[in-house]
Every structure is written in structure tokens, then in C-alpha cells.
């Protein structure tokens, strides 16, 4: 086994493989940081290239893209408040606030090192305990997924902390929007008013771009761009100090564990992992109030999670031949084009190739770290562009990004609609994150709820007789009631303490 691993390493260290990984990583940074260009699309564009490349070289190329695309998503999230990929949406919350305060370099540095940590952690899981994780991941059927998604939805409460009522209104509005489209169980149109485009529902990316990016442009128009405070971009303090790395380690571990675990469950989806890890980072932090105001911990946890998902999603792909998400589905296609059959037999017949994939993923993470770090100063310069120039550019990016996703201006209209909505929500202090959460999780919630009930033939006890589902429901219950009850309890404790003294 040791010999095979070393032979695989030697193979990966060939010049052509290193340069393939480098090219993939460069392309990935571009794809990831450009809103609307998704990692899946980047992979599909590279796929024809791999037809003529040897298997290991093609995997170096594709994994380079995968890893750096995940990292690249944070760049536009932090600098421009436009998440480049859906998994970067939680990063924008604190990352962009940091950029506003002139700490863009530090935010990027944190994002990049956390991504690296998450990627490496998930790789370790992939190498050491992949079969075990895959076995557990298979236990996630409809009831388990329903309860997990429900847990994700309870975050609405904690993201609406300034006013729980406003948070709930925002979330419920999101759930209402999400009912538009084809009914997931019977396939008939709901609230589409005869418009075919509405049949695919309100798609997440245009909503995300609209809610995050458009309000700042509208504010610029309303206030007059000259009056808007410019970003203060500092180029120093980019490399996180060693002390800071250690201080953030618990958030990184939390994010990496959640990302890897949720990434390994087929059909759970990326955004739930990043939002859950953001929320749990807040729960384990001593300075909960500071989350959302621009602190590194709020960047570290979700960024570790989204790169953790990369390795996590590869677990069921390599061990069972089942893709964990759309991106690994393409990787699976790439494997098959190379004449390799994924699944348990891959380990038996092509052990060296499997080790090569591990090393290629390792190299992809390292190269992403190096590439992203060496270009931070370039990225941060974007903020030195005056706002009256920058804002129109962001506007153009929003239009192109929302169009490019499915090549339709309908999505651009959706983006503008939610942009306008987001502007008014911001003006009247309604939080936008609950709406985003509801739109991204709503479909999975409905689908798994109804699917579980089909499977149990209408018996709702299926949600509590399945132990994993029950566990999530209990956590969800406390997660939901926590923010409501906590002020009461801590209030009581305080009065107790004061009465004692």
C-alpha cells in the first residue's frame, strides 16, 4: 500500500500533471470569482480537453478547478458583496463588512487559509474513513433529509436576531416565492400564470445576486455616488498572524467537519453546510453579537465548510460511484470517459489511480493556496477603484452573471426584482438572509417531506421512528426555541444572581 501511494505521488509530480493542476486552479479562481459562472460550467468547458489526456492529468486539471473555484467564490463575496458561487453566500455576511472597514486583505487571507484547512481536512477524511462515512451517508433517506433541512431553516430565527418578527416575515416571504414552479411531486405548474419560464421556479443564483449586490448599487444612485464612503483598502495585514490562525482554529474545524459530513450526503446541497457552520460558529463564540459586523470567525467557518464539501462530495463518488453534488457528477462522467468504473471496484482494480486522485486533490489545495495568496494584493486593488466607477461595473456583472447561468434574460429580470425587493428590505431593516435561506432550502424541505410521506404511506411517525431524523428534529427544536427562550433564562439567572448578592 505504501509503495502504491509513493508510485502515485511520483506520477502526480510529473511536470504535465503539475501544470495541468496549475491551469485548473487559475481557471477556477476566474470561474469562482465571477458571479454566474459556476464550477459545474467550468468543468463542462474543460471536459472535452480531458478526452485526450491521461486519467491522472485530467483529474489534476479538474480537481484544480474544483478546489480553487470553491476558494474563488469568496473573493467577489468579500470584495463586492456578490457571492461568486452559492456556497460563498454565508462568507459575504461578515467578509464584506470586513472589506468595508478596510480589512479586505485580512478577510481574503482568512478565507483562503480556511479554505485550505477545509480542503485538507476533507482530504484526510477521504483517505482515512471514506467507506465508513459513505455507509452513514447512505442512511440519509427522505425523512433524514427533511429533518436536516428543517434544522437549516430554524437558522431564520438566529439570522433575524435584531427583530425575530422581521426575520420570520422575510423567511416566510421566501417560502412563498419558493412555491412558484412545477410541483415537485405531481409535476403540475403552481402560480406560473402561464409563463413557461416560471415553471422552473425562482432560481437561487439570480435571487442571491439580486439580494446581495443590487441594494448597494441602488443606494449609490439614491445617495449620489460622491457621498458614499469609499472603501478603505489596506494592503497590509494580509497574511494572518500565527496567533490569529490559532484563535480561529475552532471555527475552521467546525466548518471543515460540517462541510465534509454534509458534502458526503447525496442531495443535501451546499448552502445548508455553509449556513449551518456559520450559525454554529456564532453559537460557540464568546462574542456572538459581533457576528455580522465583520469578524474573521464569520469568514473562517463557512469558508472551511465550502472547501470541506469538495472532499466530502468525493467520498460517495469514489467509494460508491454516487455523486454527492452536481460537480462530482461531472467528475464521475470524466472517470467513465477515461474508461474507469467508479465504485468499490475502483479501489480494487485501480488502487494506484485512486491514490493519484488523493495526491491530485492535495496538490490542488496547495496550488490554490499559493495562487490565491500571491494574488490577494491584486484583488484588493479592486476596492481602490472609486465607487462611481465600481458600482456600474458591479451592475454589469450582475446582469451578465444572472444571464449567463441559463442563458435567459428571465433570470436577469428575477435578479432585478429581488434586487429592488432587497433594497426596500434593507431600507426598512428586514434581514435578507432568512429569505435567501427559505428560497434555497424550501424546495428540499417540501420535496423530502412529501416523499417521506409517500414512502410511509401517509404515516407521519416516520420522522421520529428514524433515529437520525429524530436527532435532527430535537436539535432543530432547541435551535428554534433557543433564541426565543434564552433572553428569558439569562434574564432570570441575572435576577437570581443579583438577589443572591
Amino acid at each position, binding site marked *: 500500500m505504501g509503495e502504491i501511494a509513493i508510485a502515485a505521488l511520483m506520477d502526480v509530480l510529473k511536470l504535465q500533471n503539475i501544470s495541468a493542476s496549475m491551469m485548473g486552479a487559475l481557471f477556477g479562481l476566474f470561474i469562482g470569482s465571477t458571479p454566474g459562472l459556476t464550477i459545474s460550467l467550468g468543468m463542462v468547458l474543460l471536459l472535452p480537453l480531458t478526452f485526450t489526456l491521461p486519467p491522472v492529468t485530467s483529474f489534476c486539471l479538474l480537481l484544480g478547478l474544483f478546489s480553487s473555484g470553491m476558494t474563488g467564490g469568496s473573493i467577489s463575496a468579500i470584495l463586492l458583496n456578490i457571492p461568486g458561487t452559492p456556497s460563498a453566500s454565508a462568507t459575504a455576511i461578515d467578509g464584506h463588512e470586513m472589506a468595508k472597514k478596510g480589512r479586505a486583505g485580512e478577510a481574503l487571507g482568512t478565507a483562503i487559509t480556511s479554505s485550505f484547512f477545509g480542503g485538507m481536512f476533507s482530504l484526510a477524511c477521504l483517505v482515512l474513513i471514506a467507506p465508513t462515512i459513505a455507509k452513514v451517508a447512505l442512511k440519509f433517506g427522505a425523512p433524514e433529509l427533511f429533518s436536516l433541512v428543517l434544522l437549516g431553516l430554524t437558522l431564520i430565527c438566529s439570522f433575524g436576531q435584531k427583530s425575530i418578527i422581521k426575520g420570520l416575515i422575510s423567511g416566510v416571504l421566501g417560502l412563498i416565492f419558493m412555491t412558484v414552479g412545477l410541483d415537485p411531486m405531481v409535476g*403540475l405548474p403552481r402560480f406560473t400564470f402561464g409563463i413557461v419560464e416560471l415553471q422552473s421556479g425562482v432560481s437561487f443564483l439570480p435571487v442571491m445576486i439580486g439580494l446581495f449586490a443590487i441594494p448597494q448599487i441602488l443606494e449609490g444612485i439614491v445617495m449620489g455616488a460622491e457621498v458614499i464612503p469609499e472603501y478603505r483598502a489596506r494592503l497590509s495585514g494580509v497574511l494572518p498572524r500565527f496567533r490569529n490562525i490559532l484563535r480561529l482554529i475552532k471555527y475552521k474545524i467546525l466548518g471543515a467537519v460540517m462541510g465534509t459530513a454534509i458534502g458526503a450526503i447525496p442531495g443535501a446541497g451546499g448552502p445548508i453546510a455553509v449556513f449551518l457552520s456559520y450559525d454554529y460558529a456564532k453559537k460557540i463564540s464568546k462574542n456572538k453579537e459581533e457576528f455580522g459586523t465583520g469578524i474573521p470567525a464569520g469568514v473562517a467557518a463557512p469558508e472551511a465548510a465550502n472547501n470541506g464539501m469538495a472532499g466530502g462530495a468525493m467520498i460517495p463518488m469514489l467509494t460508491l460511484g454516487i455523486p454527492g453534488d452536481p460537480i462530482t457528477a461531472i467528475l464521475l462522467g470524466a472517470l467513465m470517459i477515461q474508461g474507469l468504473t467508479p465504485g468499490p471496484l475502483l479501489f480494487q482494480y485501480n488502487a494506484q489511480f485512486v491514490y493519484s486522485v488523493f495526491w491530485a486533490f492535495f496538490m490542488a489545495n496547495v496550488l490554490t493556496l499559493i495562487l490565491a495568496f500571491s494574488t490577494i494584493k491584486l484583488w484588493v486593488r479592486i476596492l481602490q477603484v472609486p465607487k462611481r466607477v465600481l458600482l456600474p461595473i458591479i451592475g454589469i456583472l450582475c446582469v451578465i452573471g444572472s444571464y449567463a447561468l441559463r442563458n435567459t434574460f428571465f433570470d436577469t429580470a428575477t435578479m432585478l426584482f429581488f434586487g429592488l425587493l432587497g433594497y426596500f428590505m434593507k431600507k426598512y431593516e428586514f434581514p435578507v438572509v432568512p429569505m435567501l435561506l427559505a428560497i434555497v432550502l424550501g424546495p428540499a424541505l417540501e420535496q423530502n417531506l412529501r416523499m417521506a410521506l409517500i414512502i410511509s404511506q401517509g404515516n407521519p411517525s416516520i420522522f421520529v421512528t428514524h433515529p437520525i431524523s429524530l436527532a435532527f428534529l430535537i436539535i432543530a427544536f432547541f435551535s428554534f426555541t433557543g433564541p426565543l427562550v434564552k433572553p428569558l433564562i439569562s434574564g432570570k439567572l441575572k435576577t437570581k444572581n443579583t438577589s443572591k448578592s
Partner: protein
Amino acid sequence: MKRFKNFIVIFLTVVLIFGATISGLAQDYPTKPINFLIPFGAGGSADIMGRTLANATKKYLGQPIVPINRPGAGGGIMYTALKNSKPDGYTVGWNSTSVLTATNIGNVPFTYQAFEHVCRIGYTAMPIAVRADSPWKSFNDLEDYARRNPGKIKVGNAGTGSATHLTAVIMEKKAGLQVIHVPLGAGRRVPSLLGGEVEVICVPLPEIAPQVKAGSARILAMPTEKRDPSFPDVPTFKEQGYDIVIELFRGISVPKGTPSNVLRILEDAFRKGSQDASFRRVAEENGFNIDFKGRIDFERYLAEQDKLIADGMKLGGLVE
């Protein structure tokens, strides 16, 4: 001076516009890149096969073929866009069985006859599969059990109204059984089968083939005309006494009203493209059987499949 400049600008514009029109009229089709609409998202089987075919065919047309994903509404978005595009041969659609399912379920206000169908490129089998540790070794075993236990067996599919769902419905009705159809969605079919959530799935062959080879799943029957070349030991439904032939076909369609010389050129180019070595290799790896049908044969085939799908929808209670 300024007036002269303006004159030059206007003159050049006029020349350009006329030049373009004249060259468009005088020269043969095609003179510019062709848009190739794909009804599903990036990375799926439709996408990979479509992009490879476009790439293999461009040299026979002498113009680039540009793949554009128009996913959504079970293909309905793409078919609507295709129907509304100019019938000049510069927009072609990469169709599939979805052109029949999306139109029959009534989510778009037209039928498959709203298009000119250029050719079928080939098809993928959608077999019925069970876990390897399942007691059912053949379709007859499954049938016996289902007959004795009506409403017990859960059969997973890609979504209500999808080709896999209809295949399962037709199987259920033709064999006179009663099963529970679970619309698992494309991504969760195989995990749900392996995890034990459903006992049976109807699934495109390439998705289940690796599991069969790894010894974790078994195929009971193929709803195809003849046995699949990659699984010559697995019998078809027909051999087991049931006339169930539904294939996940893929081909080329263009808007109604496309000139017949353009149709001929496209048919010829795509036939050559489908025989191109680069396409054949990817097809084989993806469990896609190349079986070209020209315009006339494809129309006849579509009429048969459309009737099957329509009947399946009625049997399944999806349409009145």
C-alpha cells in the same frame, strides 16, 4: 469635414448591412455559427452527449456549433425557446424523450408536432433494477411478490411525468400490479435504492451499470426492443412476455417551417457526426447506443413513442 465623416460612417453601415444580407441569400446554408440548445443543465448525460455530438458534427457542417444549456420545466423551457426561434436552421434543439413527456403532461401549450424532427441519434435503456441482496432474481419473481402484496413495493423514479416514471407505470399496469411510485429525483435514485429506501428503481442504464458491475445491484429487465450490448445476459420485457418498449432517445429537432434543403443538410451532417470516432467513444462510455434514424423513420418512431407516453400518462392518472 464632419459631414464627410458622417457620410463615410453611414455609407459603411449601409454596405455592411447589404453585404451581410446578400451573402446570406447568395451563399448556401450554413454561413454562420449554429446554436445548439440543450434541454438540461451542465454536466448531465444530455449535456455531455450533446456537447460531444456538437463538437463531432461541426466539421461536417463547416461552421461552429455552439452548445447552450436551456434547462428547466423538464425540458419545457428549451422546447419553448426552440419553437419561438427563427426557422432558418441556425437554432437546433438536442431533443430527448422529454419532447414527448413535457408536451403530453400539458405544461407547454403545444405538442411534439410543433417541430420538424431531423433525426434520432440513438438511445439509452432505462432498466428496472433491484439491490443485489434482493430476493427477486427475475422480473417474474418481482411480479409474483407484487401480486401477492399489492401496494407494498416502492419503485423510485426521476420525477412524476418523467420517462422513468412512465416506464414504471406502464410496467405496473401491463403486468396488472399495484406499486407505490416514489419521485426521488435524478440525483437520489441510486442512493435510495442502495440505502434501502425503495426496493426497485427505474433508471437510465449508465447510472446503475457501475453498481451492477460492483455487485451491489441487479437489473431485472430492459424495456428496449433488443438486448443491450453492454448487458447481453439481461432479458428484455418483450422476452418475458410484456410488450414494454420505452427508450430514452436523443435526436435533433428544429422549428417548424425550416426549409427542406436545410433539413437535408442537417440530417446528413448529424448522421456523419454520430459516426465520428470521438462521439462513438463517449457514447460507449455513457451507455448510449448509437442507432441513427433519418427524418422519415424518426417521425414514425416519434408517433409510436408519443402514443406510448400518452397512454402511460392516462394509465398513471397524470392527464384526463
